[in-house]
């Protein structure tokens, strides 16, 4: 069947709520409206108003209550609408969600998921287009997931909901409509994808390209074209950004001896900064050149759509950078 990324997320939520009645879901406009992207439509009817709840515009209370609910026995999966809104409950996520267990003792478990729609989307502007993964990588204790396709999104969200560690789950919103062919039996098999496991999306021998979220399809497109030019690109999707699956990525770099990272967010202090720093620190002798970072330009996201597109990497930007590495 053809499944959209958005449907996969909705289905993961429904399946987990059917499986475990401790799981509940809340956020702004997720009930009657079914979330502003339509992802949670039908859930209010199926699970009722105690397990599928609208909230007022109170992001700190969404996160705070999720902590309180999670530590006392529920498994809240909450939604922050836009990833940018993690910044209005930043302390709650950075200090409390991430560190709560460490600071309070092993008795404390926080089985909670914070979903958020991430990245740019046609003129959404500087406050509705951010990628926040790298900000939260700086907070020890948080698991950060960014899927790139419907299959992964479903399996990863199910794992996130089942995890006893708190998970920040970032959904590149330009992917919501992206379709993927998945065999029915596989899609409906209650499969999960382990957190912390990267996926080699394309085999290659000349360079390891770590691509995140929306950048994965663009990286694959670039890889296809570069193959015609004689450059064989291995595309790895970490899927879980923290903790990172170094084994898979490092094995690839040991094979290709070149590495680049492509992400949708701003370059400075982005995910690529940490990854590039790690790669060169830990695999210096394996690398035949610098680790390249391909990322958004360091500007607030312009409202003007041509400039928005210009500021975010596309397949051409990726190809250009990679060509320059040989």
């Amino acid at each position, binding site marked *: 069947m053809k499944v959209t990324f958005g449907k996969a997320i909705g289905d993961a939520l429904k399946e987990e709520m059917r499986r475990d009645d401790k799981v509940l879901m809340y956020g702004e406009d997720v009930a*009657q409206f079914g979330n502003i992207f339509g992802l949670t439509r039908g859930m209010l009817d199926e699970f009722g108003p105690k397990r599928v709840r609208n909230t007022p515009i109170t*992001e700190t209370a969404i996160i705070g209550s999720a902590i309180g609910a999670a530590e006392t026995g529920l498994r809240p999966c909450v939604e922050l609408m836009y990833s940018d809104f993690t910044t*209005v409950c930043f302390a709650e996520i950075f200090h409390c969600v991430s560190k709560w267990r460490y600071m309070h003792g092993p008795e404390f478990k926080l089985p909670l998921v914070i979903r958020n729609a991430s990245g740019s989307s046609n*003129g959404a502007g500087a406050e*509705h287009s951010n990628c926040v993964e790298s900000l939260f990588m700086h907070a020890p204790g948080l698991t950060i997931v960014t899927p790139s396709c419907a299959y992964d999104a479903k399996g990863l969200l199910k794992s996130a909901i089942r995890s006893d560690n708190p998970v920040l789950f970032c959904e590149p919103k330009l992917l919501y409509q992206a379709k993927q062919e998945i065999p029915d039996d596989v899609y409906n098999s209650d499969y999960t994808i382990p957190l912390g496991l990267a996926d080699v999306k394309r085999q290659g021998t000349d360079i390891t390209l770590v691509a995140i979220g929306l950048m994965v399809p663009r990286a694959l497109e670039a890889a296809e074209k570069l193959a015609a030019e004689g450059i064989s690109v291995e595309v790895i999707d970490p899927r879980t950004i923290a903790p990172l699956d170094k084994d898979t990525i490092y094995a690839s770099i040991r094979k290709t001896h070149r590495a680049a990272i492509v992400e949708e967010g701003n370059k400075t202090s982005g995910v690529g900064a940490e990854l590039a720093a790690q790669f060169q620190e830990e695999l210096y002798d394996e690398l035949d050149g610098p680790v390249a970072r391909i990322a958004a330009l360091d500007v607030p996201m312009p*409202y003007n*759509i041509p400039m928005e597109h210009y*500021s975010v990497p596309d397949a051409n930007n990726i190809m250009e950078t990679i060509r320059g590495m040989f």
Partner: protein
Amino acid sequence: MKYENDFLLKIHKELLEMRLLEAKMVDLYAESRVPGHIHSGMGQEAAFVGVLATRKPGDYFKLAHRVVSSSYLVGDPLDTFFGEILAKKTGNSGGRGGINHTGRLCDGVLGMSGTLGCDAAIPVGAAMTIEAEGRDNVAFFFAGDGATNRGPVYEAMTLAADWKLPVVFVCINNGFGISTPTEYSSPVPNVMADKAAGFNMPSVVVDGTNVLETYEGASKIVEGVRAGNGPAVIECKCYRWRGHFEGDQCAYRDGAVTQMNMEEKDCVKNFEKDLMDQGVLTADQIAEMRESFDKEMEASIAHAEAAPEMTADEIFDYLYV
């Protein structure tokens, strides 16, 4: 009526032009000429016109994503207004920020944050400038019923009240925050006014679809703030005619109620009827005004369409001074 004709005609002109602007934005959006989202404020114009009829030069305004044509009301020329909507270099920020971040300091428009509530204390800071300069101006804060639930709004109210600053907190209660009815999101019917006493502020609740009632309620409140009595709250009750954004089918609410509001509580139509009944305006005059403002808008849109867009080499401009 107890008002001078000039005043009534001015109010009417403002109301009508805002309505036409709001309608024009919907049209432009439908033609896919606008990036991002617009949030039509049709039906809510009187709340802004009524409250802002109390303004005077030197006042400051923290406006909101709805009703964006309020920036035109306080001085933004149509050319920069449409320039920004269409993301052209002639816009307020040259198409960098977009219509949901309109700012124009020369008019006192302080800018706005797309992250609701994060700009709540910005008028408080502007009021510090007013105080430091010893002026009798005020700084207006506008936000919706939904945004008012955010914590920074209460922090802003606290700081303004502690420091007795001239801030007028205006809540535009249009019954919804996206799909969520105010009765659900707020434990009290008047989201901001019912909390005013808890911050030691006077408040008034007005029918925000009745421009003169709004003006009268606001006048008393704003007078006190100008006089140095500290901040205060105005809550304007109205109804959001259209979806939250264009495309929203509003399946979460009763279409009949919407219909009723559009028919019975049309702030433009009702005011025009009063003015016509009293011989202040004729239907012909109104038709003429509509036509002439439409021409003005079309000219500005054409101007904007013809204007250049920012280019890649300019993308870092204005990030730093």
